């Protein structure tokens, strides 16, 4: 008898309705609402978070939708990312997107619904649907500055590459279905081991499936070598959307990767069961991301492009936790994405408000910011140092966990390489600090951010410092997420 335990879907349903309400509200007020629609969207996110707290835990729709600890943990990240992206948009909402505010905030919420749905998917088809629901609103949002050539170009690029990668992913998923006769990830895991036990090997079908799924999710994660779209899209998109892309959509990709690989294909993470070992492939891709992202970021003069390459590198670090395929590995990935939410959102929020006031994204134009706006500069410095992994900030604990997981799993070479590249990364993160603090030319004007943006920045800094000094509570949640997979 099918079970329809609709109650665990209440957060998603509410957020979906709220998104529709935002569309309607904007039309109802004849688009004359520069401030309150953003606050309405933020309220919606907060209410969803409360609902998530009240209704979580359980399985519904015959195992298609699973509200487990992993899903809940990442839903918190998605809601946090949406909250901060909406808050960061409060400035551009007044002027730049004047004619389509409702659609903008509504689409952000819809994309968030998609991420939440995806993180609960324990089955390939609902996972794919969640992924599409995440990306389709983002296609529109990336191209939202329709008079700006770079934004439209970014949107088109993202659309084409996104559609292409979805097709590849779908092909890979269909191969998995063909091999195992099921779309349920846990059943798939069992069937694959049975196949292996019966025949001794599985053959090229699985290799193709693994390669295609890695490629498909790799595009969403901006994993090297599927990262080429990221710098252009990050640069062209409205900055809050860039932030949402770099945190929310990346975290969504990370959940999908964990569900399919770390859980479903767990047995094939090393050479024991398969001619193809996805662990080593992903380790090599992680190494590529860490090396290429960090080295390319060194040369960037535009802060958004620099952060784009930095996020390519960051996902490389996350992948070390993935290939560890252990309790600590999964926990480190969850914790890393959680801290990354604060650091990256914060950095992009500073970039947003800076761009709104000066019209510039170049790192050079940050010169002297510490004199004109000391608080903003200090916040940016904290974000940069956290991204570089300097203790006692959250970014350090996150990196420590990932590296610990890597060493525990025997990937010593990967950890040493990643650490060396972390030293390289310090150079470009410190470069921003150097501009803000050391430069004698003072070009940056005084910036007083609006309330919503100040709130986002304060939350981010507080998150980085508090969870850097006292990571215990979040880390325990992150360790709970690992229990889902029962290694």
């Amino acid at each position, binding site marked *: 008898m099918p079970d329809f335990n609709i109650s665990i879907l209440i957060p998603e349903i509410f957020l979906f309705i709220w998104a529709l309400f935002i569309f309607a509200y904007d039309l109802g007020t004849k688009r004359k609402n520069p401030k309150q629609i953003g606050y309405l969207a933020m309220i919606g996110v907060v209410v969803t978070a409360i609902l998530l707290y009240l209704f979580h835990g359980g399985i519904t729709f015959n195992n298609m939708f699973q509200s487990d600890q992993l899903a809940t943990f990442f839903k918190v990240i998605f809601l946090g990312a949406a909250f901060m992206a909406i808050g960061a948009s409060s400035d551009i909402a007044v002027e730049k997107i004047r004619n389509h505010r409702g659609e903008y905030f509504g689409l952000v919420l819809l994309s968030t619904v998609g991420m939440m749905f995806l993180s609960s998917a324990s089955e390939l088809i609902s996972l794919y649907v969640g992924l599409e629901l995440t990306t389709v609103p983002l296609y529109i949002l990336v191209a939202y500055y329709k008079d700006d050539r770079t934004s439209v170009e970014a949107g088109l690029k993202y659309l084409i590459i996104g559609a292409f990668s979805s097709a590849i992913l779908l092909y890979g998923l269909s191969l998995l279905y063909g091999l195992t006769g099921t779309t349920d990830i846990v059943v798939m895991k069992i069937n694959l081991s049975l196949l292996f036990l019966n025949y001794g090997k599985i053959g090229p079908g699985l290799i193709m499936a693994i390669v295609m799924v890695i490629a498909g999710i790799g595009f969403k994660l901006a994993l090297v070598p599927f990262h080429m779209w990221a710098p252009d899209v990050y640069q062209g998109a409205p900055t809050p959307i860039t932030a949402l892309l770099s945190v929310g959509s990346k975290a969504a990709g990370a959940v999908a990767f964990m569900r399919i690989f770390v859980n479903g294909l767990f047995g094939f993470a090393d050479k024991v069961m398969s001619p193809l070992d996805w662990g080593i492939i992903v380790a090599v891709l992680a190494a590529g991301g860490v090396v290429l992202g960090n080295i390319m970021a060194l040369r960037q003069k535009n802060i958004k492009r620099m952060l784009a390459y930095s996020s390519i590198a960051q996902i490389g670090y996350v992948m070390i936790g993935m290939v560890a395929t252990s309790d*600590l590995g999964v*926990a480190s990935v969850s914790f890393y994405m959680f801290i990354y939410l604060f650091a990256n959102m914060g950095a992009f929020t500073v970039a947003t408000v800076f761009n709104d006031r000066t019209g510039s994204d170049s790192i050079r134009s940050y010169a002297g910011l510490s004199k004109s706006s000391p608080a903003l500069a200090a916040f940016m410095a904290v974000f940069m*140092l956290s991204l570089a992994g*300097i*203790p*006692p900030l959250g970014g*350090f*604990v996150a990196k*420590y*966990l990932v*590296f*610990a997981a890597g*060493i*525990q799993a025997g990937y*010593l070479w990967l*950890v*040493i390489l990643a*650490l*060396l590249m*972390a*030293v390289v990364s*310090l*150079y470009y993160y*410190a470069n921003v*600090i*150097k501009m803000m*603090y*050391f430069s004698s030319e003072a070009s940056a004007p005084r910036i007083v951010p609006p309330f919503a943006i100040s709130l986002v920045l304060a939350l981010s800094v507080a998150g980085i410092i508090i969870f850097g000094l006292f*990571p*215990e509570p979040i*880390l*325990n949640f992150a*360790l709970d997420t690992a229990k889902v997979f029962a290694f």
Partner: protein
Amino acid sequence: MGFPILSYLIFIPLAGFVAVIFLPKDRPQLIRWTSAAFSFVPFLLSIYLTYQYYFSYSGSSAMAFVEGPFGWISAINANYYLGADGISVPMLFLTGLLSFVSILASFNIVNRVKEYFAFFLLLETGMMGVFCALDFFLFYVFWEVMLVPMYFLIGVWGGPRKEYAAIKFFLYTLFGSIFMLVAILALYFSSNPHTLNMMELIQNAPGFLTHGMQLFCFAFFFIAFAIKVPVWPFHTWLPDAHVEAPTAVSVILAGVLLKMGTYGMLRVSWPMFPEAVRFFSLPIALLGLIAIIYGALVSMAQKDLKKLVAYSSVSHMGYCMLALGAWSSVTAITGCMFQMFSHGLITGALFLMVGMLYDRAHTREIAAFGGLGVKIPVYTGLMVLFSMAALGLPGMSGFVSEIMVFIGSFSFPGFKLVTALAVIGVVLTAGYMLRMVQRMFLGEFDQGKWGGLTEINVREILTVAPLALLTIVVGVYPAPLSNLMKATLENLVNLMAR
């Protein structure tokens, strides 16, 4: 005990950091005195700590003033665990003293006063923490926390090439730290049950580590510590950072930061990896020898007074490495500790003196001066005193430490030639120090050029006076200092004989 003195040492400067941040920007005098107060209290505490340790704990090698281990991050077994013994107490005292002195010496900073003192207090927190931490995670956190304020202090308030020097220091030290991080993780996962507790690892590490693992961990830790010391060939960050940093920061760099390298070796590498130390003892001593000779020769060639002092640090820290190579000799290890302590006093004082002259003359070029003894006799007297201390004149702390290093390492089997060669360093040091004194303070005085030079004031004399006093006291009567660390160092040598 009940009174968590080590936590106070660490967190009073941190409280000062927070307090200074919330002070109004336009009250520089208030900021200066607040910072001085927040560094004076830890200084007093460090005196009390030394006193307490000397009379109550120095008889045994056990950790004193232990706090914890209190659970911090249970998932990775990181604890809040502090303690002090004969190795850390002198360093804590030195940190308390030099931080307070440096903050007093920084009163003439006028540019962005608030940020300067805030960063300085944060720096003190990091330094105190490194010397107290007995948990690797905590140790690493403090070790790194220091880098950030140091980066800002050099980068904002430094000399003409400050940006280059700041990032070079930051990258170089972080480069070393990552090797330490790998080694810490390797130790953690090799131990069973997994632990980051240094005391347990000192007891057990030689037992559970294979020979290869010992060499691996030792090498990785060594890179991190050697960069801090700095051991040749990892020294290239030092001249840049020391020369570009503002005076007080140079004092801290030379007086405390360099000691963290040798402290790390004594606290971590030597007792935990005795097999590796035995294996590498000659190469370590040779690195020390190279640093002694090379540092002295390079100092000789310097035209800039501050660079001369900076390179002399490379040379002086070389004695520590030589002594550390002679691992089985308590005399040598005691000499190493003495050298760490006295180098902190002497070089710290020399940097202060250089800064005072630079404030007045706006140049540090040795050749620009001559016959200053006529015009500024008090300054000259103090400068000569510290130069003599640096070249190891008997009666000063530098002599005691060098003679102990030489006696200790000469008696170590196979080190006769190395020690004999290292003694050349003393001659070279005398060479460049005396030449500097002669060219700057003796000879013809250029009235037209330096007629307006003023004598140092009372505040400046007071900042260097305690350093001068201690240099002489330790030089004349070294017994208290050596009694302070005797039991700990004997125990250390026993641990290494395992």
